[in-house]
């Protein structure tokens, strides 16, 4: 598994747990709000869990961008310095 696949699998698990879905139900580009009825509290929970797991700080302003798994990966990669 490439590093990117590994990170995507871990992020998919966090998102699935917070949104109360099975990991395989979370598509890479599906919009959290439109597809899974996420709200701002769930978004903050996803952000907080990612920060804790990877020990990284992500500005709250990035929340608006983090609307799909792929977008979450891009934001986290930027702040955690991943070379995915």
């Amino acid at each position: 598994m490439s590093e990117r696949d590994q990170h995507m699998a871990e992020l998919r698990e966090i998102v699935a747990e917070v949104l109360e879905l099975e990991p395989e139900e979370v598509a890479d580009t599906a919009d959290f709000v439109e597809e899974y009825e996420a709200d701002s509290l769930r978004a903050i929970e996803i952000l907080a869990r990612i920060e804790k797991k990877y020990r990284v700080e992500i500005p709250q302003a990035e929340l608006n961008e983090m609307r799909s798994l792929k977008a979450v990966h891009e934001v986290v990669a930027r702040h955690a310095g991943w070379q995915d």
Partner: protein
Amino acid sequence: MRLDHGELRSLLPHRYPMLLLDRVDSVEPGVSLEAVKAVTGCEPCYRGIGEGQAPDRYAYPASLLIESFGQGAAVLWLLSRGPGTTGLPMFTAARDCVLLRPVYPGDVIRHRVRLEQVVHGAAFAAGSSWVGTDQVAEFGSMMAVVRPADAIAERKR
């Protein structure tokens, strides 16, 4: 640090019948807290139960046990904030909570709460609840967010 019931009332907006903590025995701000809730047969949740019911009818409701632990987490968070911070914690999510045995009138519950993370106006706590040496509940993750105090309307008489 120890907080008696009056001090709890000055920290939490909850009142009868929803103030579900009696005392805080110890607090290490930013880290952990130990709080006490005594359950009695006078609780409103036992009002209206008919005569001759099975003992398990008097099990303390899980929702109130979780709320009581959450109030302990709220006190810990409030005492962990810097001076001049305002707003009240609002309980938003509980995950990985396991109830291990029922609690009955006469039991004294001790909540052991740890503050795990405070970030983006949200706090996460975890811990366990005990009656004597028996663990009665495990709390994997309790989340609260801060909301302006004036948004939580005070009921005027």
